[in-house]
């Protein structure tokens, strides 16, 4: 006897049974569940706006997390700010008398400690840096030469000889004996007589003397004279600050590359720095724009201001992180220990003082504020 289609023959009883029906039903259920799953996945993709089966954010690089700063590390707060009035401010310096000088465009602008404008001097070319000389004049650095401007009358007193066609001057510092001029173009710091005559260089690569040379992926090479008499020079490509004797011997260095808060991040930082009255360092970084304090031996102390305080960081957090190499905060410190940060994108100077609650190395930091 032949069973009808879809039914099997029970050989003992000779009767047909419907064992195929559950299999068909199971298969139908499976197909239904699979179809339902496909529909759900497609709907989810549609809801999430995904273009297909490729995961969302698989290749995304979230840089925002790098801009975060632990609030407990922030030692300072903004006390004031003032507009520079310049389209492209480049450098800032504070004199011993408390005059704040900002250079940019083709001008030197002077402010008092509150940010009130004192004077403006027109310059013949675009300046790149400024510092106070040992005699109270202001030394303004241009691409290849330095000019001396008299405070008060704001007139040009002298023009130094060019330091060469390849010179690209980005920082100046003065001691009672020498003027140090940082030349990013030729990767040296010139040691000059107060008259402007070059007397030697610091930091030029010299394997025999153990001087590794400056590594400058971007034109930042800051210099300052510390209270201990050594010349501190930032070597941004090596992520450290080096100390040289005035004659050019490399004495010591500190700093390490890391995006963690205690080190220097990016390709080339610190881009600029200044010295507090006690010899501590205030460093500026670009890329992740942050200002920090290190003790005279280079140990991390705390944060002056994090990335969110500056235009470069605000742009980055808003999605426009393309200012990385275009930023470059500059910093100066006045006699009272106030930290003046020049934000070149916002074109303002921000004045930071220590928080009343902040303690530094066990002593009350409000003394500096």
């Amino acid at each position, binding site marked *: 006897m032949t069973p009808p289609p879809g039914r099997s023959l029970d050989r003992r009883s000779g009767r047909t049974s419907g064992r195929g029906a559950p299999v068909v039903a199971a298969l139908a259920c499976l197909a239904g569940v699979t179809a339902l799953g496909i529909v759900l996945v497609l709907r989810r993709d549609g809801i999430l706006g995904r273009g297909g089966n490729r995961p969302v954010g698989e290749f995304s690089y979230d840089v925002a997390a790098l801009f975060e700063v632990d609030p407990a590390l922030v030692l300072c707060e903004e006390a004031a700010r003032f507009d520079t009035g310049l389209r492209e401010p480049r450098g800032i310096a504070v004199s011993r008398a408390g005059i704040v000088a900002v250079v940019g465009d083709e001008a030197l602008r002077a402010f008092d400690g509150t940010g009130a404008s004192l004077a403006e001097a027109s310059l013949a070319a675009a300046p790149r840096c400024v510092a106070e000389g040992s005699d109270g004049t202001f030394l303004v650095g241009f691409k290849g030469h330095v000019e001396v401007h008299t405070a008060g009358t704001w007139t040009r007193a002298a023009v130094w000889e060019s330091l060469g066609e390849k010179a690209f001057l980005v920082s100046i510092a003065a001691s009672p004996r020498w003027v140090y001029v940082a030349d990013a173009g030729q990767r040296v710091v010139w040691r000059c007589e107060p008259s402007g005559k070059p007397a030697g260089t610091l930091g030029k690569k010299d394997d025999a003397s153990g001087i590794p040379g400056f590594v400058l992926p971007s034109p930042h090479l800051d210099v300052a004279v510390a209270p201990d008499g050594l010349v501190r020079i930032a070597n941004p490509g090596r992520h450290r600050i080096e100390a040289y004797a005035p004659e050019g011997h490399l004495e010591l260095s500190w700093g390490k590359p890391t995006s963690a808060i205690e080190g220097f991040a990016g390709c080339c930082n610190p881009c600029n720095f200044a010295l507090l009255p006690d010899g501590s360092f205030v460093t500026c970084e670009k890329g992740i724009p942050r200002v920090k304090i290190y003790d005279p031996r280079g140990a991390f102390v705390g944060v002056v201001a994090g990335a969110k305080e500056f235009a470069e960081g605000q742009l980055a957090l808003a*999605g426009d992180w393309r200012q990385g190499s275009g930023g470059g905060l500059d910093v100066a410190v006045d006699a009272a220990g106030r930290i003046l940060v020049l934000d070149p994108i916002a074109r303002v100077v921000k004045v930071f003082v220590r928080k009343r609650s902040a303690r530094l190395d066990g002593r009350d930091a409000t003394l500096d504020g």
Partner: protein
Amino acid sequence: MAEMQRSMGDGQPETGLSRRDILRGGVRGTLLAGLGYLAGILTMRGRKHEWVWQIDPYKCIACDGCAKNCVLEVSAVKCVHTYPMCGYCDLCTGFFDPQPNALNTGAENQLCPTGAIVREFIEDPYFAYHIEKDICIGCGKCVKGCTAFGNGSLHLQIEHDRCVDCNECRIAVRCPADAVVRVPSERPYLIKGKPPAT
């Protein structure tokens, strides 16, 4: 004589041109004008711009959309390196993860998800970085790292030996920065540091 009189007195113009000559000249002129027009059309067609898609590196935000939205299985967008802009950094922020264990080529230290950047020692402390285009998927992680924290010498470009030049580029449609633009095929690349196509 009668023949001569007919020829002189039957209304022929004094120029000596017959109607047939005028017609023949007209036909010749028309043909020549047609040939000239045809030649002009062909010349103009030869000179006509073809337009192709390209990424404006100054608008690009390296969002990773180029890796995911191209109709090709492996995107036609690749990383391009403008060497004159590069700092040849030891700590290359386009090559290394933000928190590398060490500055070496260990996979765990690299930012590129496919290992498409080759790091080559030049001299202390300088390293050159080269893009393996066959491996690069155009995700732009390196571009973001280089531009946000470095000199921005790495950037993305549509490679025209791979691009199928869709009439409506799927990357362009979805680009959040409107960075994918049409450029003339004679100057199909927008390389950083070089003048833009005109």
